[in-house]
């Protein structure tokens, strides 16, 4: 377990907000040396976003920043100055990967387009994450999490048919994009190692969502095969319970398809139901079944129901709050959370590793960086003296 998978990989990180930083977090947590470049003064805008520790807004106390930037080093650099751009080019020489999520064309306007950077570092991988990609009529349009979901497709199908569509929670979609972009970056790294060249990974959030398995890869072919788009509709079969159901202390979500009906009957320990409801696809029997089912559910907690269903292999999940999740025995036993100590916020519990690997581990070597915490370390290595750094700071470069 000595090695981390990406311990030989160097990344320069120009990303901010959610999707880009999640991408570079994945790389950093598996061992890559990630240097995060932030704007002098204010840094990554996510430092200004809640939740904050004790609801106290402070650039080093944003929970989302702290979570998204583990294992990275932070330097400040103003790319709008010529000196800043020169320093950036020096940093570029030595890295394998550059990740950015500015709007399309911003890097080119700064004189830092791929053609320029490629000359300095011919094997450079440049992962570019943007809402609409680097080309096409919408490329300069602005986005947000909800717009990404709308243009990317899942939104139209989420919600009730007689109401407006409703989005996924918080910025979950954008985190997922970072997850994909990390995979895409690794593919480009594989190419650099095996074919010997770097390239641009143009990651457009809209088309990524339209192409992935968040409904789209099922619903698009269904539309093509049958000619009608899919709307907001239940996936319930006949009288069978599928969806959210109230129980003693909250809600459970379940899916019971015709093949699983005997398991539900087994879980309820009411074998007579098999005969009573011999045609489960008959939706007119739903009320009759619900009159038995709801009272049965209301006597049991969500946790009990989840575990009972687990033992008969029925698809039932407790609709957990974060409190439930943090107290859940499975997550705790698996070690899904991480304790991280940070100089300003102290020890806190964070989401832990997404998965484990037997040879190469996920590890927190350092908490999220303070703004510019590693200026001296990183610029010192390039040969800048402390006096140089003072001057650069005075000139607004770092």
């Amino acid at each position: 377990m000595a090695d981390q998978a990406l311990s030989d990989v160097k990344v320069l990180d120009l990303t901010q907000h959610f999707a880009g930083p999640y991408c570079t977090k994945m790389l950093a947590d598996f061992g890559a040396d990630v240097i995060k470049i932030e704007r002098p003064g204010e840094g990554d805008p996510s430092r200004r976003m809640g939740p904050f520790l004790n609801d106290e807004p402070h650039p080093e106390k944003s929970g989302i920043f702290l979570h998204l930037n583990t294992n990275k080093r932070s330097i400040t650099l103003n790319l709008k100055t010529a000196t800043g751009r020169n320093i950036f080019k020096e940093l570029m020489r030595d890295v394998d990967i550059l990740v950015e999520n500015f709007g399309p064309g911003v890097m080119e306007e700064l004189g830092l387009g791929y053609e320029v950077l490629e000359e300095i570092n011919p094997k450079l991988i440049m992962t570019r994450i943007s809402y609409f990609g680097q080309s096409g009529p919408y490329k300069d349009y602005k986005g947000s999490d909800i717009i990404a979901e709308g243009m990317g497709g899942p939104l139209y199908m989420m919600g009730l048919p007689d109401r407006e569509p409703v989005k996924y929670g918080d910025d979950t979609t954008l985190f997922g994009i970072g997850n994909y972009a990390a995979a895409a970056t690794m593919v480009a790294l594989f190419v650099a190692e095996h074919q010997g060249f770097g390239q641009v990974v143009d990651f457009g959030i809209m088309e990524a969502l339209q192409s992935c398995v968040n409904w789209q890869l099922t619903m698009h072919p269904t539309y093509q095969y049958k000619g009608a788009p899919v709307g907001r509709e239940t996936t319930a079969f006949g009288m069978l319970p599928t969806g959210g159901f109230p129980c003693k202390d909250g809600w459970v979500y379940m899916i019971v398809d015709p093949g699983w009906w005997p398991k539900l009957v087994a879980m309820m320990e009411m074998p007579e139901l098999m005969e009573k409801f011999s045609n489960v696809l008959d939706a007119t029997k739903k009320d009759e079944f619900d009159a038995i089912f709801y009272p049965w559910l209301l006597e049991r907690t969500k946790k009990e129901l989840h575990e009972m269903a687990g033992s008969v292999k029925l698809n039932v999940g407790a609709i957990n709050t974060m409190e439930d999740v943090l107290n859940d025995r499975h997550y705790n036993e698996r070690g899904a959370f991480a304790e991280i100590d940070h100089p300003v916020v102290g020890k806190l519990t964070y989401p832990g590793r997404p998965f484990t690997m037997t040879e190469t581990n996920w590890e927190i070597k350092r908490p999220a960086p303070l703004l510019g915490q590693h200026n001296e370390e990183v610029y010192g290595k390039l040969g800048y003296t402390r006096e140089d750094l003072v001057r650069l700071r005075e000139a607004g470069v770092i």
Partner: protein
Amino acid sequence: MAKLPLEGIRVLDITMVWALPWTGAMLGELGAEVIRVEQLQRYPRLTRGIFPKPTREIAEMLGTIGSGFPDGEPGERPWDRFAMFNGIQRSKLSCTMDLERPEGIELFKRLVKVSDGFIENNAPEVMDKLGLTWEALSEVNPRLVYVRAPGYGLSGPYRNYSGLGMIFESVAGHSWTWWYDNDDMSGILPCFHADAAAGASALFALMMGLHHREKTGRGQLVDLGQCENFLPHLGEAFMDYTMNGRIRGTMCNRHPTAVQGVYLCKGAKPSLETPPGEDHWVAITIQTDEEWEGFCRAIGNPDWTKEKRFSDFLSRLKNQDDLDKLIEEWTSQRDKYEVMHTLQREGVPAGAVLNSRDAFNDPHLKERGWPVELTHRECGTHMYPGPVWHMSKTPSRVFQAPCLGEHNEYVYKKVLGVSDEEYERLVKEGHIGDTYIGI
């Protein structure tokens, strides 16, 4: 001429339903040779259909997913005509062997010997019972990268629980942060972030495994519990709880620091009778003062925009109920694309809410080369979604999802070097075929 990114890599695939099948498809599109190993004796429910041989009438009772066949007709070979399978399982090959007989396992191990990766997402006991554990397979091929992605991971009290992505959304705390209202979750629909995230992480993990193998010559096992893989994606709710003890519920379509919503556009009103695709919506996020001013300009500066209750950022957030009604009055008279373009021209983040019909006609997606035309042997020619991302120097490819056992000849004769006689014997003994046995 650049080669496909993953040319020369071979990955075995015993995947189910949504999450990991999609990893296999991405690998295939990137140039890996992905071999889906199937079993004629075991019909993979929810993967190649809901029922093996539904009639058209039964299929119609199985909802949108269950009835997803060309023209709604399951045909003679429904498992080859199922829209969900054909969307998710493309760009890979299919071979068959009976993994519940010793010879099937021997054949599978011969494939393992000549493969780089193996991905699967069954309950842990399935592979364990077949003897396809890391201990067994690493003896056959120590360079193998084996990604196992059961719902709850390979250990822990829930390890053998059954699960689908939509269940994990609830268990991991995502469901509590979406939907209209936490007081009534009864109508909540399935949500599919967990599947998409597991698909991505499995690809990421496999690529890291290959990278590490390059350095050390050793493969490894990845234990990816779908239920915990996307927990870090819920960072806002997670950190709010651990930092402040606050349980975050749903905000519906609202945003903590922006006027945000999904607004009705010109078209049908949403109702239980409205055919899907006839109601039209736009998503709008107005955060900064500049965006608000842009919004006012875009809608022609009507008097109400100058009222005190909307005059600054905090007032707008406080009075969003009123503001939503006024915004929707404007949007509901206009086409969703018109609203999007008009607002975006003034710097306001806005996006049409696309259904499948819109997506295949969208000029941006078309210009980006997103829709791809594929001809499927059993289904004819249709458009499908294209690759997830673009790479500037390496090509990519998309090809049709495999019919059951479609590539048996290639896999057995070319990959394994099985003789014609042995091949015939394996056909007779029910390892090789293109139709389920005993269903």
